[in-house]
């Protein structure tokens, strides 16, 4: 069978299947879309996307399709070019699998929502934008997907639009993403002017790439993937419904920034300064997010900061010039993070809206499936040997320990690994074990296929995905083969230290030996003071100065000083000096008349 034809057809078919629920109601007479319909569509698309993935795993075949050009300038080509390479062919089934599970879960979670079909359609539109971003071969198509996921993120975070905090959070997400968009537009402009193309293949230079486009790309990734400095939108995005958090802000949208850097990694690999910048930014983000997660009390915020921390780890991997390993971490992270969010959604709904872990406890007996899968997800997140997270996380730590890099970045990442274990164990201990601290009458029932099937499916993925992907995909760079035992066990040692720290802290909290508020706990629970400092200062100054300049200063200057009042002031000055001459004495007038006649006679 013609493999190229099969590959291209099945990928395009996957995209077409996804587009069907959006396009078909426009063409048919009576538009009928339902959540079950949409879930089934995504499941079909997932099964179809397994064909190209299997083809790639079996034969290593990749392809690039380049069709219809947008002819608006003679010299500049913008075709619709789709790249089916390792990254897009692996990402499609994973994203579709996760989305299918989330849609099935959302049919239970959002069952009481009057506009549930619109919600599902929004999620589907987001998925289309994300897949466009993944399969794009030129930066223009990628940018279309980039903006698409940004807009859908805004609409979905602010889904419950009557809630002021949700609107503020959606606005925050859009503004921070916009700052990142400055970066990607800057690099696109530089590329268009220097290399006359937006195709990713043609941007490769053998000499060192200049800093400007790379800074733009790094800014774009920092904005979209919530690196330190542009991170506050990700915890705030937890105002949206849990399926939104599971799909957008854990597995798919936030990895778009990292994906951009993976796509453009030939440009990055030339410039060592840019790589070091990625490394330092990533390590700072991962430690900062892990520090903030330790003292959070909202279960969704803990998982959000965990996402932020893992994104920092992916940025670190980019900084080590290992894009394939970053992609492996994206793939394995998608499984267990989406599962963690779905488990937290199940817990929240079963406790009738309670999100505070200080009011949960003893759920291991009451929600066995959910909490078992929560444990599996947490173990995978910590990098337990041979679960999914181990294959990517351990490789990253090993590569870090055996390369030439900034020492502080290495130390921060190791510290963040142990903090990951700490906050994960804290969440597990407070949610699942010990006595229950919740209200006595709760509608607790997880005996619903719509809850257990997605969660157990994703649990299976969390266990198997790492092994499956690494068994079938050959690495493009040689991983470090030999290292001292201490280096090899560095990741697991730091995790065990983190677990010990968590147990010790939990013991101290039970026996109340430490003061409740110290400098460090304040720093951690108020998210490093970043949010109040920057948000209040910048918005107050911007809005105040905008008001003063736009209405007061401009009005004052143009309508008063430049116009009537200004001219009147000038006239006043002149008249004040010349009024002294109006003395009324005839002698003065006659003498001034004679003087002026004399001067005229002398001149002429």
């Amino acid at each position, binding site marked *: 069978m013609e493999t190229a034809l099969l590959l291209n057809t099945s990928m395009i078919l996957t995209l077409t299947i996804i587009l069907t629920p959006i396009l078909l109601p426009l063409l048919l007479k009576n538009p009928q879309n339902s959540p079950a319909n949409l879930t089934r569509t995504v499941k079909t698309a997932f099964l179809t996307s397994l064909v190209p993935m299997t083809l790639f795993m079996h034969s290593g075949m990749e392809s690039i399709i380049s069709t219809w050009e947008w002819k608006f300038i003679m010299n500049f080509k913008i075709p619709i070019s789709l790249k089916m390479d390792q990254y897009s062919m692996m990402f499609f089934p994973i994203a579709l699998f996760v989305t299918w599970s989330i849609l099935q879960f959302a049919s239970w979670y959002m069952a009481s929502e009057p506009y549930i079909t619109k919600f599902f359609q929004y999620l589907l539109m987001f998925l289309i934008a994300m897949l466009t971003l993944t399969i794009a071969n030129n930066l223009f198509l990628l940018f279309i997907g980039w903006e698409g996921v940004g807009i859908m993120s805004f609409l979905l975070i602010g889904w419950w639009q009557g809630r002021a905090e949700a609107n503020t959070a959606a606005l925050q997400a859009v503004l921070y993403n916009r700052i990142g968009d400055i970066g990607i537009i800057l690099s696109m402009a530089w590329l268009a002017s220097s290399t006359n193309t937006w195709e990713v293949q043609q941007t490769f230079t053998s000499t060192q790439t200049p800093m400007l486009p790379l800074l733009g790309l790094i800014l774009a990734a920092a904005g979209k993937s919530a690196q330190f400095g542009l991170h506050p939108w990700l915890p705030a995005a937890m105002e949206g419904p849990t399926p939104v958090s599971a799909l957008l802000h854990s597995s798919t949208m936030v990895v778009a920034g990292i994906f951009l850097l993976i796509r453009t990694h030939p440009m990055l690999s030339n410039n060592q300064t840019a790589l070091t910048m990625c490394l330092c930014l990533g390590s700072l983000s991962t430690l900062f997010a892990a520090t903030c997660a330790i003292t959070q009390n909202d279960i969704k915020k803990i998982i959000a900061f965990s996402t932020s921390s893992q994104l920092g780890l992916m940025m670190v991997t980019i900084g080590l010039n290992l894009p394939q390993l970053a992609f492996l971490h994206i793939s394995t992270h998608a499984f267990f993070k989406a599962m963690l969010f779905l488990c937290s959604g199940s817990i929240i709904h079963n406790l009738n809206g309670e999100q505070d872990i200080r009011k949960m406890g003893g759920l291991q007996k009451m929600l066995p499936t959910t909490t078992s899968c929560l444990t599996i997800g947490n173990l995978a997140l910590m990098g337990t040997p041979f679960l999914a997270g181990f294959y990517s996380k351990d490789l990253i730590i090993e590569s870090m320990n055996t390369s030439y890099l*900034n020492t502080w970045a290495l130390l921060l990442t190791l510290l963040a690994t142990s903090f990951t274990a700490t906050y994960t164990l804290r969440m597990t201990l407070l949610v699942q074990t010990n006595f229950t601290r919740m209200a006595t009458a709760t509608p607790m029932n997880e005996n619903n296929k719509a809850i257990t099937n997605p969660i157990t499916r994703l649990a299976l993925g969390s266990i198997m995905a790492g092994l499956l992907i690494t068994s079938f995909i050959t690495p493009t760079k040689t991983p470090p083969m030999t290292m001292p035992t201490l280096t090899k066990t560095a990741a697991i040692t730091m995790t065990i230290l983190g677990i010990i720290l968590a147990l010790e802290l939990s013991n101290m909290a039970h026996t109340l030996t430490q003061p409740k508020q110290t400098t460090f706990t304040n720093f951690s629970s108020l998210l490093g003071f970043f949010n*109040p400092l920057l948000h209040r200062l910048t918005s107050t100054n911007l809005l105040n100065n905008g008001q003063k300049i736009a209405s007061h200063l401009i009005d004052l200057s143009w309508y008063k000083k430049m116009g009537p009042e200004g001219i009147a002031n000038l006239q006043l000055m002149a008249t004040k000096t010349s009024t002294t001459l109006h003395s009324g004495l005839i002698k003065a007038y006659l003498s001034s008349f004679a003087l002026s006649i004399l001067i005229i006679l002398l001149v002429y």
Partner: protein
Amino acid sequence: SEMSKDLMPGPYPRTPEERAAAAKKYNMRVEDYQPYPDDGFGYGDYPMLPNKSLHERDPWYQWDQPDMRHNWGQPMHWDFDMYIRNRVDTSPTPVPWHTMRKHFLVFLSTMLIMFGLGEIYPSYRPVGPKQYPFNDLYLEKGGDPNKEPPVVTHYEI
């Protein structure tokens, strides 16, 4: 229909009677009423309310307009669109402002200094200079075959 002339904002009040009339117009007490200073920026007799955002108003009280936390007839701040619940929050922080600023700047500067130190003293696997065989490739590098080659070792035992 429009508001009548005596309900609209007017010029800066100069006499105490004008101040009392302006305070009554804005539904405020004469003691509370404080206009903006008359420096030509066009505020007129509009009251200068404290710069507090809507976040600080009681969320549980039954306001006439719950989303704006505002009662009918209550004077609105000149910059009210800056102080709504989607914008600036001026509510008191749990930690004082100067403490927050100091701790954040300490954290940031420590990180930047340590990153700089990490660049100066990077971490790498222990390596030694490369040792080529045959006396550092003496003959291959064009050495004289008749002369005794110098012994070059990059290691110590």
